C-alpha cells in the first residue's frame, strides 16, 4: 500500500526468521547449522568418495585380479596397475603395484561399475589431506586395501547384496565342479 510497505514486510520476514532460529526445530525454519567437528551429519549410504580395494579376511587374498579394465575405463586415467609375476615368470592373478592418484580421481564411480570381479568400490572417506602435491595423495596398494567388514560397515545394503550374489556364484561354480567337467568354459 504506502511507499515503504514492501521494505517493512521484507524486514518482518527476517525478524520472523531470527525469532524462529531461537525457538523452532531445524526442519520448520529453525537453526540447521551442525557443529561439524563435534557433531557429524549421518552419511548417506550411496555417498561415494575415493575408491578402495576389498580383501576377504586377510589382505593377501584381495579380489582384484589385475585385469586392468578399471584403468582403461577410468575417465581421468588415475589408476596404474602392474601385474605380479611369480618366481619363474608366470603371470599371477594379483597386482604387484596398484596406485590411484587421489589428486586426479573425481569420484565418478565408473571403476566400481566396470569391475567384473567386485574388487573396487567407493569409500566414504573424505577427510584426506596431504602436505605436498604428489607425495601422500598417491595411494599405493596397501593404503587402498580395506576389509570386507569395512565395506559392510559403510554400505550395508549394497555389501549384503554383493555378498549374496558372490555366494550364489560360488555355489554354482561348486555345482559345476561336482558334475563332469564340461569343456573349458568360455571367459566368464
Amino acid at each position, binding site marked *: 500500500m504506502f*511507499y*515503504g*510497505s*514492501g*521494505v517493512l*514486510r*521484507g524486514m*518482518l*520476514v*527476517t525478524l*520472523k*526468521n531470527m525469532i524462529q532460529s531461537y525457538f523452532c526445530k531445524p526442519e520448520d525454519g529453525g537453526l*540447521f547449522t551442525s557443529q561439524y567437528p563435534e557433531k557429524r551429519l549421518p552419511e*548417506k549410504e*550411496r*555417498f*561415494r568418495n575415493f575408491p578402495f580395494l576389498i580383501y576377504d579376511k586377510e589382505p593377501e587374498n584381495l579380489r582384484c585380479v589385475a585385469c586392468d*579394465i578399471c584403468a*582403461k*575405463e577410468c*575417465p581421468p586415467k588415475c589408476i596404474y596397475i602392474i601385474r605380479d609375476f611369480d618366481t619363474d615368470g608366470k603371470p599371477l592373478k594379483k597386482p604387484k603395484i596398484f596406485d590411484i592418484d587421489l589428486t586426479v580421481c*573425481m*569420484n*565418478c*564411480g*565408473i571403476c566400481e*561399475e*566396470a569391475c*567384473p570381479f567386485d574388487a573396487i568400490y*567407493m569409500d566414504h572417506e573424505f577427510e584426506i589431506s596431504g602436505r605436498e602435491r604428489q607425495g601422500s595423495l598417491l595411494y599405493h596398494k596397501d593404503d587402498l586395501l580395506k576389509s570386507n567388514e569395512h565395506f559392510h560397515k559403510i554400505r550395508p545394503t549394497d555389501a549384503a547384496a554383493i555378498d549374496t550374489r558372490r555366494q550364489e556364484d560360488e555355489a554354482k561354480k561348486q555345482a559345476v565342479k561336482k558334475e563332469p567337467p564340461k569343456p573349458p568354459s568360455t571367459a566368464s
Partner: protein
Amino acid sequence: MEKTVTLQDSGAIDTQTLDINIGPQHPSTHGVFRMNMKLDGETVVSLKPVMGYLHRNHEQIAENMFYLGSMPYTDRLDYFNSMTNNFVYALTVEKLAQIEVPERADYIRVIMSELTRLVNHVSVTGFLLNDLGAFFTPVLYAFRERERILDIFEEVSGARMMCNYFRFGGVKYDLSGEALVAIKDVVSRFPKFLDEYEKLLTKNEILCMRCQNVGILSPELAISASITGPMLRASGVNYDIRKVDNYSIYDRFKFRVPLGKVGDVYDRYYVRILEMRESLKILEQALKEIPAGEIMAKKMAPFVKAPRNFKPPLGESYARVEAPKGELGIYIVSDGTPQPWRYHVRAPSFINLTILEDLCVGHKVADAVVILGSVDIVLGEVDR
C-alpha cells in the same frame, strides 16, 4: 577485484573516460569472467566481456573417451544443475542408438531435472540480491532449501553436485522408498518457503527501484541473438523447449509457461519465481504417477558391466533440453567406434552473454553488475 586502471588524462575535467576492467577475481560471485568497461563518470560507455579463463577442453576430451566416460564430465559443464546436463547427454546418445527408456526411468529423470530447476532458480535470485547489496540473507535462505534438495541428490545418486546419475537407456540406481518420501516432503514444503521468499523480495521498493527498467531486452534482439531460457520468456517470447519438443514424457504433465512484458531485470527475476511454481506442479504430478518397473533399457544390459564396448551406429544426432539457463543441446557425430567422432555442447549461458553490452551501455556501473547477475551465467558452461 584486480584493477588495472589506465587514466586517459585529457586535462579537461569532464571528458575523462575511465577504463576499468572488473577483473576475473570476483565480479560478484559469477566465476572467472572479466568485463572491460569504459566509464564516463558513472555511466557505462562500452563493455567488452572477456571469457575463457575456465576453458577445460571438454569437447576434445570427449572425442578421445568412451561414451560413458564423458558422462561425469557433463556434470562439470553447468555445475549448478548436473542432472539436466546428464539428461541431455543421455537423450542424444539414446536418439543416436535408438534406445527405448523404460517408464520409471523417464519419470525419475523428469523429477530430477525439475528439482535442479528449483535449485538453480532459487540460488540465482539469491545471487541477484547479493549483487544488489543485500548482505547474503536471500542467498542463505535459498541455500537452506537447496541443501534439502542436494541431500536428496546425494541419497539418490551418491554425490551432491556431481551426480553422474543418468545412464544411456535409464538411470544408474533406483529411487528407494524413503528417497521418494524425502522428495514429497521437500516438494510440499517448497511453496511455503517461496511465499516467504516473495514476501521478502518482490514488493521490496529498493529492489524495484534498482531492477525496474534496467537492462531492457527487446524481443526482436532476443530472438535475433538466439537467447533462450528465462531471459527470452521475460521479454515476452513464448518458447519453452519442454512445450516445443515435448521430449521425454513432458507431454503428460499439465503446466504453464510464464511470460514477462518489459524484459528488464525485474521481469527476469519474477519469471524465474513463477517458473519455480510451475516446476512444483510438474513434480507433484510426476510423484503421483511414478510407476514401478526396472530402470535400465534391456538393450543396454550387456554394456552396464562393460561400458567400453558400447558402439552406437554410424550417424549424427542433436538433442536439446530446457535447462534452467536456457536451451542446452549436445550434438554428437559417431563413426561406429566406441569414441564419438565429434562432440559439441550448445551452452545457453555463453549465448545469453553475447548481448551483455547492448543491455549495459547507458546504465551505471552498479547496474552493469546487476544485469550480469540477472543474465545468470555459470562460467563452467560458458568456457566449457
